[in-house]
């Protein structure tokens, strides 16, 4: 709202002057020397109030000053004062202007009454600027707003010194009286208020003060409303509250004051006469104001006084009246348009219109205010067209811009809550009065951003007019008097804007930028990002026109980096942005930006239009940019949309390591037709996973590439580049990149397909992630990176003929590499069906290289299981013992290098496992690690696994049968038998001897026939003082005996046990034995002997209890021969025992011998009872009714049978064989029997 006289547009708030709070010297000036000549001085001689209270009051008054309040009715306080403070003096402007000079000169010629004096602000007074025909100006508004208070407050403090009280009080009384007199004499109706601060705080003191104050009040003739007292307060808040209450009560008086003023103005209007000026005008047109004009003046006055009272309805009506009258026939119409008064009237019209708008917005008539805004513009336009200089000039556009800005500022000042940025509203709904009408969209009150934007458009139009000012008018008027004579005043509308010569050189740009910046701020506040971007574009355009490229860059670069327009495909906008930014960047020497933009602008597919003035050649991008060094520009597809669309696809989604997978790199150039071909220096593709980076460099082939269907197909050879290996120790990383070379020229609109075989090396998933294009010219180099995204890849496969095939995969740039299928065979050969414990196991491994090339191989063997024996891996003459691998001790392994295995050759190795002691199960893994000499980078593994189950080849059980020892027992009565027949100092056992038969039954559990070489019993240990001897088994033929699987074999061993001494205490003795089987496989070498030892349970020999052993002798040569049955009772104890022997008769045999007898046995002795038995049957068992009973214990002893006998529950059985025995046998038997008989005796 600049440009309008100060205070002419402000909302008027009642003026309150507070005197006596600041130091007395502080006073106010009237600002006009002509007014100060006759100014009325209001002064007081008493000192100002000082101390904390004064400071606090002053601060409070400053805080509640209403000068800067928003122009709306929302106000928290009960008063709305414009507060000025002064010291002890105050100047009031004179009520009447003084007598005009020179009046006395003419007194003789015109016999007149003395001139009627008027206010110095009135057009009637010659000293006024308005004299003689001005309507009203801002000075009158200023008079009431700044100079003449509605309320004049005098602050006094009370003193408490009893000696001075009287004097001081009377001084105060006269002081107040004098001020009152001055005010009433001045002619102004300013209300005087006295506020007394301080005094005593005690109750007694308060009463005394009341008394004093009453005296003063009566003395000065003030009433209770204007004579006020603020007693000392405890806190600042209370003081403020007290002052607040005072101001609120004064506010009503102030309202009365302005009401009176308004009535006064209304009264003057209703008189309907034209007041005569003090002195008739003699200069100019000598014109004075018409009645209509006076009516305008009075209406404005009344309206302003209404505004003081915040009676906006009345103010609106009065302003409207004034406005209409102003436009009416007798006011503005009759002012000649060359007169300055014409522009003054126009100014007044603007001021009135704005005050009307404020009233409307104060009252919430949003749409009404917009309509009114338009109406004023249209009326002015019409008026200017008819009476002024028309609307086709810069002055009109300048005013339109001003009018739009005024609306924006008004909306700001009125501070509409409903339109605040938090309300999410861009415009207000129409008020109720207009809600049902058909409104123009613009009638809805939009936020100030739109108004500022509108202003900027008018400013741009203004500049266009300014540029058309002809050369003649551009010269300052002083320099060419002739032009001055031509009087531009008539040609140009200079209302509130500069003369043509100034306008031509005016800084329109900054005005436009200012308006745009205001608009942009508003839009940004309301998060209208795109609109503020649009404004930024306009701003940048202005900066560019003004040559301020840095500023333009500052605005444009964020827009470009933001990418909103581009990611949302507003190509025309981003194109415009690009072009602007390019020229700014070029001027500002930002090569990165220039190249980036050029790169993008090459793109035809983005709906960019072709610029005829620009050479589409990226290599010439920086030709007109002066640079010190050659810049290197790095761009990504996130910053710049590429003109080349790139895709990379594997032909299939699955590949195998060691094989090559066809892949296609496709460039599709969307460059503008006719643009220069882009020759890339190189392309690099990076992969995620096991594929090494792929590089293709440019190679001039010279030949033109054949194109079919606009697709140029070329097959590119890739070489694995190992040259870059520096200090790589791991041979698997030997290859650093794949390289190829091809012609990398991209013609506009062309599709280039590079098909290449990508060697797959390691298994796993691999995907192309990034493509980097390297472009290099003399002036700059460029790296452009494109990410392969899942969504961005093309799904097309090109054939050399240019045909396209759709790939149905969603991620064609990804490949799943499976391990290379190994062709080398690793297997165990010649292995047995079954392996057994206690044998050394040799496993033969055969490695068969079935690959097409020689293989460098390593053999790795691992064995795991419980208690793994020693394992040796043997290869030729090299041996390697397995060592534990892994965390647990259950696994052992060894690796042996095989070396180069030529193709189609077989080599062998052996795994030798030591004998296992017990049945167990092993797992075996054999791996061949190798790589082919032709393809050293692909590691290949072939593996094989086995289970090795080892079982016991034999099982056995044992039976210990009693036998009768043939030797006589040593007798205590026969010292010779007790003699220690020591052999070489070793004590030979000489105790009781017993004989047993150990019957073993063993069976082969093997799956095949085994060669049994020998059987043996080894005594591990004996318990008790007994010595045991076991006879050697000699029933195995020389060279071994073949044992079939699952057949039971028996082997008997004689066991002789003899106590060490006869004196030994009788007790049970036992022995521990193992059964040893020596065997070998039928097919194994003769010197192989495997010994399987089978542990036997503990066997008890030589007890202390008496035992009865029966033997039978029979010689079946003679049919009538008899059988001799010996019953031997052994008493190994140290007791004297008595037994009874009973033989029951039977019908199956006849016997001779004691039928019943009693036997006494000495300690450590044995006796024989002999029977002759004649069996009646042959080839059958006969049961002997023989009973042996311990007479002392009455216990029947068990009769132990020996050979040819058996025993069951009921007794002993004897086998009577057929007569088949040979004479020899009989003889032997007889001899034996005779011996027994002797013993028995």
């Amino acid at each position, binding site marked *: 709202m600049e440009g309008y006289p100060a205070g002419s547009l402000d909302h008027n708030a009642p003026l309150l002057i507070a005197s006596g709070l600041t130091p007395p010297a502080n006073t106010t000036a009237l600002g006009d020397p002509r007014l100060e000549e006759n100014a009325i001085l209001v002064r007081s001689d008493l000192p100002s109030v000082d101390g904390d209270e004064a400071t606090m009051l002053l601060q409070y008054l400053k805080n509640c000053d209403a000068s800067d309040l928003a122009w709306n009715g929302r106000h928290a306080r009960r008063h709305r004062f414009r507060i000025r403070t002064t010291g002890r003096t105050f100047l009031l402007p004179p009520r009447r202007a003084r007598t005009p000079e020179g009046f006395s000169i003419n007194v003789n010629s015109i016999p007149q009454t003395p001139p009627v004096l008027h206010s110095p602000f009135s057009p009637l007074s010659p000293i006024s600027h308005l004299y003689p025909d001005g309507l009203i100006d801002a000075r009158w508004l200023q008079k009431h707003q700044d100079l003449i208070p509605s309320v004049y407050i005098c602050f006094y403090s009370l003193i408490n010194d009893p000696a001075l009280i009287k004097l001081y009080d009377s001084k105060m009384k006269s002081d107040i009286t004098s001020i009152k007199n001055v005010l009433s004499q001045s002619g102004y109706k300013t209300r005087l208020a006295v506020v007394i601060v301080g005094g005593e705080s005690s109750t007694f003191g308060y009463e005394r003060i009341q008394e004093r104050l009453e005296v003063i009040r009566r003395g000065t003739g003030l009433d209770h409303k204007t004579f006020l007292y603020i007693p000392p307060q405890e806190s600042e808040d209370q003081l403020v509250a007290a002052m607040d209450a005072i101001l609120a009560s004064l506010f009503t008086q102030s309202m009365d004051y302005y009401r009176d003023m308004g009535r006064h103005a209304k009264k003057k209007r209703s008189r309907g006469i034209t007041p005569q000026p003090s002195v008739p005008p003699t200069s100019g047109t000598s014109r004075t104001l018409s009645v209509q004009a006076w009516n305008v003046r009075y209406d404005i006055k009344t309206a302003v006084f209404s505004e003081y009272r915040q009676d906006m309805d009345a103010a*609106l009506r009065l302003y*409207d009246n004034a406005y209409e009258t102003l436009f*009416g*026939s007798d006011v503005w119409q009759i002012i000649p348009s060359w007169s300055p008064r014409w522009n003054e009237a126009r100014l007044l019209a603007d001021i009135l219109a704005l005050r*009307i708008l404020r009233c*409307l917005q104060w009252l919430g*008539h949003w749409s*009404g205010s*917009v*309509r*009114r805004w*338009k*109406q004023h*513009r*249209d009326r002015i*336009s*019409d008026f200017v*067209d*008819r009476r002024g200089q028309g*609307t086709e000039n810069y002055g009109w*556009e300048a005013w339109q811009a001003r009018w739009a800005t005024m609306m924006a500022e008004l909306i700001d000042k009125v501070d509409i809550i409903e339109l605040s940025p938090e309300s*999410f*509203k*861009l*415009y207000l709904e129409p008020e109720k*009065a207009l809600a049902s*009408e*058909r*409104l*123009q*969209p*613009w009638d*809805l009150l*939009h936020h100030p951003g*739109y108004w500022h*934007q509108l202003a900027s*458009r008018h400013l*741009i*139009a203004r500049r*266009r007019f300014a540029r058309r000012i002809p050369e003649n008018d551009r010269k300052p008027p002083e320099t060419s008097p002739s032009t001055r004579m031509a009087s531009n005043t008539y040609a140009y509308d200079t209302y509130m804007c500069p003369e043509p010569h100034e306008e031509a050189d005016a800084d329109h740009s900054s005005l436009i930028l200012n308006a745009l910046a205001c608009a942009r701020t508003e839009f940004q506040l309301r998060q*209208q990002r*795109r*609109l503020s971007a*649009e404004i930024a574009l306009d701003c940048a*355009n202005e900066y560019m026109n003004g040559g301020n490229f840095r500023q333009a860059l500052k605005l444009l670069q964020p827009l470009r980096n933001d990418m909103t327009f581009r*990611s*949302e*495909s*507003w190509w*025309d*906008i981003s*194109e*415009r942005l690009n*072009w*602007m930014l390019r020229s700014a960047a070029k001027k500002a020497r930002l090569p990165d930006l220039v190249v980036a933009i050029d790169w993008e602008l090459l793109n035809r597919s983005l*709906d960019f239009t072709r*610029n*005829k*003035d620009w050479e589409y050649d990226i290599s010439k991008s920086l030709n007109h940019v002066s640079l010190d060094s050659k810049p290197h520009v790095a761009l990504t597809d996130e910053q710049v949309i590429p003109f080349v669309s790139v895709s990379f696809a594997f032909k299939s989604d699955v590949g195998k390591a060691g094989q090559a997978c066809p892949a296609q790199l496709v460039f599709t150039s969307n460059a503008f037709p006719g643009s220069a071909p882009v020759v890339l220096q190189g392309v690099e593709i990076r992969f995620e996973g096991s594929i090494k980076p792929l590089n293709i460099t440019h190679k001039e082939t010279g030949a033109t590439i054949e194109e079919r269907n606009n697709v140029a197909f070329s097959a590119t050879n890739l070489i694995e580049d190992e040259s870059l290996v520096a200090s790589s120790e791991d041979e698997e990383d030997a290859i650093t990149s794949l390289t190829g070379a091809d012609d990398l020229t991209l013609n506009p609109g062309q599709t280039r397909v590079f098909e290449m075989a990508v060697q797959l090396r390691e298994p796993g998933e691999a995907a192309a992630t990034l493509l980097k294009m390297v472009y290099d010219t003399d002036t700059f180099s460029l790296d452009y990176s494109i990410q392969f995204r899942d*969504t961005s890849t093309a799904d097309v496969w090109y054939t050399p003929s240019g045909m396209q095939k759709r790939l149905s995969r969603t991620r064609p740039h990804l490949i799943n590499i499976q391990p290379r299928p190994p062709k080398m065979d690793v297997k165990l050969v010649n292995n047995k069906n079954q392996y057994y414990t206690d044998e050394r196991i040799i496993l033969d491994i055969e490695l068969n290289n079935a690959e097409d090339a020689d293989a460098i191989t390593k053999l790795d063997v691992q064995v795991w299981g419980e208690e793994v024996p020693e394992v040796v891996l043997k290869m030729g003459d090299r041996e390697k013992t397995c060592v534990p691998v892994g965390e647990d001790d259950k696994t052992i392994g060894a690796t042996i290098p095989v070396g180069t295995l030529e193709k189609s050759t077989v080599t062998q190795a052996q795994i030798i496992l030591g004998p296992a002691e017990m049945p167990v199960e092993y797992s075996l893994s054999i791996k061949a690690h190798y790589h082919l000499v032709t393809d050293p980078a692909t590691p290949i593994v072939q593996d094989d696994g086995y289970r090795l189950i080892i079982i016991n080849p034999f099982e056995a059980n044992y039976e210990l049968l009693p036998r009768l020892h043939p030797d006589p027992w040593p007798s205590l009565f026969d010292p010779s038998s007790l003699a220690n027949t020591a052999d070489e100092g070793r004590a030979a056992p000489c105790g009781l001897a017993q004989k047993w038969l150990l019957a073993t039954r063993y069976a082969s559990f093997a799956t095949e026939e085994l060669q049994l070489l020998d059987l043996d019993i080894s005594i591990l240990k004996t318990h008790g003082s007994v010595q045991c001897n076991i006879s050697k088994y000699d029933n195995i033929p020389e060279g071994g005996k073949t044992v079939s699987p699952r057949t039971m074999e028996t082997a008997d061993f004689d066991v002789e046990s003899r106590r060490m001494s006869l004196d030994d205490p009788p007790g049970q003795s036992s022995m521990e034995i193992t059964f040893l089987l020596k065997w070998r496989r039928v097919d194994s070498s003769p010197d192989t002997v495997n010994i399987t030892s089978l542990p036997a349970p503990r066997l008890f020999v030589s007890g202390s209890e008496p035992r009865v052993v029966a033997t039978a002798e029979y010689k079946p040569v003679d049919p009538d021969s008899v059988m001799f049955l010996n019953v031997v009772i052994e008493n190994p104890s140290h007791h004297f025992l008595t037994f009874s022997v009973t033989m029951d008769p039977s019908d199956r045999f006849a016997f001779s011998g004691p039928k019943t007898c009693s036997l006494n046995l000495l300690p450590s002795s044995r006796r024989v009872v002999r029977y002759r038995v004649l069996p009646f049957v042959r080839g059958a068992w006969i049961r002997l009714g023989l009973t042996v009973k311990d007479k002392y214990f009455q216990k029947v002893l068990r009769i132990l049978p020996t050979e040819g006998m058996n025993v069951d529950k009921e007794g002993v059985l004897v086998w009577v064989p057929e007569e088949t025995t040979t004479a020899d046998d009989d003889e032997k038997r007889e001899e034996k029997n005779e011996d027994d008989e002797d013993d028995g005796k």
Partner: protein
Amino acid sequence: MATIVPSIACLGVIGRNNNPLHLTILPSYNPSSASAITSDPEKQQQPATTISASTTASSAATGASPLRTPLQFSLLLSSTLDIFELRARAHAASGTGALSGDLGLLCAVDERLACYGYETNTGVRFVAVVDMRGRLLDPTLPSTTLIHGAIPETDRSSGGGAGNTGAAGGGAGTGTGTTGDDTSGLVNLPSLPPLSGIGILSPTSSSTTVTTSSSFIPGTSSRKPSLVASIASASTGLRDAELKPLFKAMQTSWVRLLQNPFFDLDEHVLPGGRGGRKITSKKFGEDMRRLGMGWIPGVGGFEGF
């Protein structure tokens, strides 16, 4: 007696990813003095706007031209997206009721242009930029009732403005136009239909008006009365509801486009929030053009939509 009524200046279809799908720019009745609003010459110096510059040049002879350059319309459409977002946010903040697809007036750009918006439930947005003074309705030419600027310049744009003045003055209730002065410049004021004309011009009440209106559009007699009423009222303003038939028709056309098996929406609205290609369907473009040309405030329904 020539009346200036609103017309469509531009129709835009914006995709789900805020990407422009279609833009139809229609000429407005454009007295040469309106060029002050059209564009400033600085902008046309830029290479991007060369085409638009030539359009305005060629159309100067006929008096009908788009009010702004395609680029400016693009910017305008793009800026409406802010408002769509703002409305969605405001809706989310208040959380009351369902957000209806019809957003009504988005904003007025200036006194002539205003943007109206409609959002389908799939996120496609239709924007109609209405030129409040886009069409000159001249009943003295019976053959061409609706003229898109085909009439040579008859009056200055202030004529339209003056019409608004009268309405505004009446609306504000301040007794404007009481002067009755012949030289006041409000020459067009009497020629404007009165505000109350909406009610009066019913088919039965005023036979004279009907007979006059019969010469407006031969062959569309069924729509005559409402047409008259709407034209009479058009110069005073525009209601949100008057755009509804247009948006409905646009949606119908859009749905027809979607039903075309050769139309692949994925090409136009790329996954991942990126914009795609614009709609190239000639039929759709023709539909939009037809709708834009055929829209008359207050006349419901379009033939074939």
